């Protein structure tokens, strides 16, 4: 039994235990109030007129007041709360007769919806008509945003479910009347302190917080923070895109995606972008073959996939396809169609086959392999592969004439940042490259037992990205490294091994927890058994000066990546991605 279930049982049992002593309380209050007035009157010795007034006041309080209160008991008591979330969020407080006690805005859009309407004492149906009407009128509910979340909070689950049903039918009819196909999500909710805390933290209603929590329970890649800013329609689209259903969530209709450019258009934008950036005609032709020209043509599952997702709080199409041993991954802004992010890396199968399968693009082989561990720089491989193995010497200042800072300056920036002297640098490679449309200098070198990799904005000299890791030769030689350690074996980088023999003290591996332990920590955190993990890789690495185990593996449909402090075993970062 989960904690929540136990708490719910306790709450339910104790809620039914309370004796009804309100009458007695009210009566006693009246008596006390009467007494107070009399005592005041005695003490202060007011004149007769005041006495009469005071006693009259006491009677009004005692009788008139009590009668009024008794007639109001029950009708002024909140029995049900109804929440509407679209982007505006409002709550309606109802008494037991479903008369409205209050309507409150839960965000600024909610205030706009309510305006100066006074709902007190109105029938629920009338209020729903007015509120939904106002949402339609203000454009919050429309063809391009047709989702609404309806939530009911009532101590009696049966009553709550019945009202939920009626509200859905009612709202469907109102939205339908405006010639809009509504998509209604509905749920019954009850107080949950965790949900309330999240709602408060992120400034959303409890009902929306509940929906977000349900989505997160099914998709751990998302965060509350990024979902909190989305409208219900966007959440509904995401929920549908991920195939998320929940027992408590009733769904009618389909969320509108009319605001978005559509899967096909997103696909073509990604494919066209990849073709435009292809380094040779052959690849360009291969990529262009993927373009979907006919409107009724479906994107073949064999070619790749496209799905709606969220990136930094924005809806994007995630497009993935594979051409000529390259995996392409794009994120296309779902509204504008702009390329938000793109990435290319050498296909896993290709990488695992020891490089014998194909030999074109040798230099991209090394860079692409690298991108599989450091994740961000694979898109930079386009230019690299065309410049085939060319190592730049300091004199090869090919770009100084084009308004760029020049290789020498880029090198200096990197050395300075790394805190290394020019004399200690080995294996310097500097190349002009392109990263997400920006021209950068890709500077890589080794010094003092570490390998450094920098990307420096070629125009501004700003460091766009940097990465340093312990040189392969510094790593624990006894570790059972897996086959994917291509970094040390493939490219020409490790030709001069003399650099590492002198200063091994930096990585005294005896203090480290070891790969096995790191593996166990990652498995435990991921909640999987060792036997279900595949493609396991573990490498000793360095992150911001701390030695870590970089652990990755796949299990089920997911790929996992962990960074684990090599000494304390603390998990630095973890990532879970659909395979």
């Amino acid at each position, binding site marked *: *039994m989960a904690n929540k279930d136990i*708490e719910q049982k306790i709450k339910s049992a104790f809620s039914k*235990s309370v004796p009804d002593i309100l009458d007695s309380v009210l009566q006693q209050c009246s008596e006390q109030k009467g007494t107070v007035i009399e005592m005041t009157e005695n003490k202060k010795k007011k004149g007769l007129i005041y006495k009469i007034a005071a006693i009259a006041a006491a009677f009004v309080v005692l009788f008139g007041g009590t009668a009024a209160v008794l007639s109001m008991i029950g009708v002024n008591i909140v029995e049900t709360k109804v929440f509407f979330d679209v982007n505006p969020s409002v709550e309606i407080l109802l008494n037991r007769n479903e008369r409205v006690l209050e309507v409150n805005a839960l965000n600024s859009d909610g205030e706009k919806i309510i305006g100066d309407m006074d709902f007190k004492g109105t029938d629920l149906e009338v209020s729903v008509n007015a509120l939904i009407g106002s949402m339609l009128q203000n454009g919050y509910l429309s063809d391009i945003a047709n989702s609404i979340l309806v939530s009911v909070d009532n101590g009696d689950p049966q009553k709550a479910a019945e009202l939920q049903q009626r509200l859905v039918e009612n709202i469907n009819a109102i939205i339908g009347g405006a010639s809009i196909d509504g998509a209604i999500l509905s749920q019954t909710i009850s107080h949950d302190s965790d949900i309330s*805390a999240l709602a408060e933290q992120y400034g959303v209603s409890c009902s929306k917080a509940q929906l977000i929590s349900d989505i997160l329970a099914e998709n751990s890649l998302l965060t509350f923070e990024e979902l909190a800013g989305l409208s219900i329609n966007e959440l509904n689209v995401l929920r549908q895109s991920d195939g998320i259903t929940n027992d408590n969530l009733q769904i009618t209709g389909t969320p509108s995606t009319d605001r978005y450019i559509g899967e096909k258009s997103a696909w073509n934008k990604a494919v066209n972008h990849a073709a435009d950036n292809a380094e040779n005609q052959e690849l360009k032709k291969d990529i262009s073959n993927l373009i979907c020209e006919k409107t009724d043509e479906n994107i073949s599952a064999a070619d790749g996939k496209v799905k709606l997702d969220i990136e930094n709080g924005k809806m994007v199409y995630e497009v993935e396809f594979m051409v000529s041993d390259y995996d392409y991954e794009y994120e296309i802004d779902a509204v504008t169609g702009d390329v938000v992010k793109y990435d290319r890396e050498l296909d896993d199968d290709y990488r695992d086959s020891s490089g014998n399968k194909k030999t074109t693009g040798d230099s991209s082989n090394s860079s692409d392999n690298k991108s599989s561990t450091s994740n961000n720089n694979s898109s930079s491989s386009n230019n690299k592969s065309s410049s085939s193995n060319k190592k730049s010497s300091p004199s090869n200042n090919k770009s100084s004439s084009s308004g760029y800072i020049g290789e020498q300056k880029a090198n200096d920036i990197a050395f300075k940042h790394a805190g290394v002297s020019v004399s200690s640098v080995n294996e310097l490679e500097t190349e002009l490259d392109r990263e997400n449309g920006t021209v950068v200098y890709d500077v890589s070198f080794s010094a003092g037992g570490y390998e450094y990799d920098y990307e420096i904005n070629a125009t501004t000299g700003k460091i766009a990205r940097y990465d340093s890791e312990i040189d392969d030769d510094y790593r624990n030689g006894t570790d059972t490294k897996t086959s994917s350690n291509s970094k040390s074996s493939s490219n020409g980088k490790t030709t001069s091994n003399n650099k590492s023999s002198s200063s091994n003290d930096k990585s005294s591996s005896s203090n480290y927890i070891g790969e096995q332990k790191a593996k166990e920590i990652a498995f435990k955190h991921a909640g999987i058994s060792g036997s279900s993990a595949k493609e396991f890789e573990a490498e000793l690495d360095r992150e911001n000066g701390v030695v870590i185990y970089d652990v990755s593996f796949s299990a089920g449909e997911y790929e996992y990546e962990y960074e684990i402090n090599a000494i304390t075993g603390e998990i630095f970062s973890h990532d879970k991605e659909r395979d």
Partner: protein
Amino acid sequence: MLNVETNSLKMLDEQIAKIADGDKSALAVLYNCISVSVYSYALSVLKNRSDAEDVLHDTMLEVWRSAPGYQSMGKPMAWIITIARSLCLMNLRRKSRFSDEPLETAVYMPENEELTSEDKIVIRKCIETLGDSEREIVILHAVSGFKHREIAEILGLPLSTVLSKYNRAIKKLRKTLSDN
């Protein structure tokens, strides 16, 4: 019923302000919102339904009396539970002078007809299985919706104590309720 969400707290504050002006309908609204919390809390401390009823009654009267002096710090529920708590402690002090009542189901079990046999088991297990402070903490969290941090403030205990007592209590309940 009580809900310690922000909006509800605001609503409680408004009711207390009205009560301070002598508005008894506001007292009725407040009663509806807090009676479950106050009564459950009192029952959990006193283990006697009639004493718990007295505490609920006296808490409402005290709220009525003290409302004019109430200064909203955004924590109306904590204020009310603190009143209930001091009334409970007074009751316990009085009791310890005059009697030492044995713990009998008939003494504490509420008589409400709505209670199912499962509800009764839950109440019995809460009363009989948990230690006094464990029960106090569990009720404040599960029934009233207080956060552990707030419970620590109300009871004047370190947060770590509240958390460990809460976890221990839930473990005990899980075990004993699963055994049933």
